[in-house]
């Protein structure tokens, strides 16, 4: 397995800061805007963005929730595993809010499709935007694009993007994993 580091340490921190400033540009004081991290892995990123925003704006009133999409997936009974759900923690009303969906990696777009469905169970938001730390471009199965992107990467299906955080794996790091290619016959 070959590893290539895409983002780490300070560079990742700068990326998060930039994304926060982009959010502030569009949402100013976050009066009517809420952040929703997608379970299980988008929540760490959402928590970071929330923390950073709160520091920049010196406020503790920005609303943040975690959304689980397990029951809304379109691959139920079509692949093994992954039936156990995570928790939903949305203790505010979505109706009429501007929602920023936050996930770590945007790949096929199917997770985001499910998240938009899951979100509707909490009411009708005024608008929904998407923030992704890593955008694996040119690999979408659905017509979905992110509004705020940390880093775009070109990757093939067999590769994997792994985002780890201090909170879950002890280190802030984004790596691209690929199987070593078999030597070509000339």
């Amino acid at each position, binding site marked *: 397995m070959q590893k290539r580091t895409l983002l780490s340490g300070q560079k990742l921190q700068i990326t998060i800061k930039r994304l926060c400033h982009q959010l502030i540009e569009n949402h100013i004081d976050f009066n009517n805007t809420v952040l929703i991290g997608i379970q299980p892995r988008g929540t760490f990123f959402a928590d970071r963005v929330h923390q950073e925003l709160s520091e920049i704006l010196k406020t503790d009133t920005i609303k943040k929730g975690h959304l*689980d999409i*397990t*029951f*809304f*997936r379109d691959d*139920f*009974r*079509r692949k093994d*595993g*992954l*039936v*156990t*759900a*995570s*928790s*939903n923690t949305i203790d505010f009303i979505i109706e009429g809010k501007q929602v920023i969906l936050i996930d770590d990696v945007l790949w096929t777009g199917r997770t985001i499709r499910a998240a938009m*469905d899951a979100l*509707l*169970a*909490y*009411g009708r938001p005024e608008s929904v935007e998407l923030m992704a730390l890593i955008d694996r471009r040119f690999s979408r199965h659905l017509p979905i694009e992110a509004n705020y992107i940390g880093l775009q990467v070109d990757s093939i299906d067999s590769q994997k993007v792994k985002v780890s955080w201090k909170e879950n794996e002890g280190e802030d790091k984004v790596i691209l994993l690929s199987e070593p290619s078999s030597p070509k016959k000339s």
Partner: protein
Amino acid sequence: MAADKLSTRHLLGIKDINLNDIELIFETADNFKEVINRPIKKVPSLRDITIANIFFENSTRTKLSFELAEKRLSADVVNFAASSSSVSKGETLIDTVNNILAMKVDMVVMRHPYAGAGQFLSRHINAQIVNAGDGAHEHPTQALLDAFSIREKLGDVAGKKVVIVGDILHSRVAISNILCLQKLGAEVMVCGPTTLIPKHIGALGVKVEHDLMKALNWCDVANMLRIQLERMDIKYFPTGREYSMMYGLNKQILDSLDKEIVVMHPGPINRGVEITSDVADSKQSIILNQVENGVAVRMAVLYLLASQNDK
């Protein structure tokens, strides 16, 4: 965290599932409980699954609860009650079910007056089967929702003392409860008149007590069962009034205990017989929580079973 798959294709009884299965069902039910308390109480997980509810015996709660669980998971539901069907024209169980399955049904939820009906069916047909009560044998989803309700009320089931009071002899709820609670690490006692306690129930590792006061003083949770008159072919006690005096739970008894116990009842309640109204409606009673949890637990069971039904 529990593994992400049930060890069984059907839910025929608590006897056939392990601790890990029960924990997985509880964890999933926690999620569904949150779902059914949302403004929109529906998820699309089972939208391509058809479930037949086949009830050869009367039911209100269980049938409604299963039907709601199925609908909240977006499954297609067909209902079948034996009283209004061709069963009364002499059709056999396998024929009846096979005819229903020929209409492309994926899962069967069945209640039947004979013990082992679910087991029998699972050997002969292809669909997944959920036992919603078979004779005096098992009623697994009731036991799961009872244990889930205890876990919710007291934080944990392990180490708790649960007494099941009443007609143990005719009760599938009692058997499933005993097995389920023991798997989760609780201590179980049964209490009732000698005639309504099966002779060899001690072999299941439960305590037997005939004095209600002693049983209540021992327990953290009292599960009061109904006297199943419809299953009694002979007289098991002199009169209903005498039963009620010996084994009925009233407010006076409840208040005389030195600790606050939790009162449960699987329904339907015969108010004034096994439990008085003021107890059934008291703060200590979690009877309606049991009903609410029933939907969440059944959603979890159906969801987890369906995940094994490959397209």
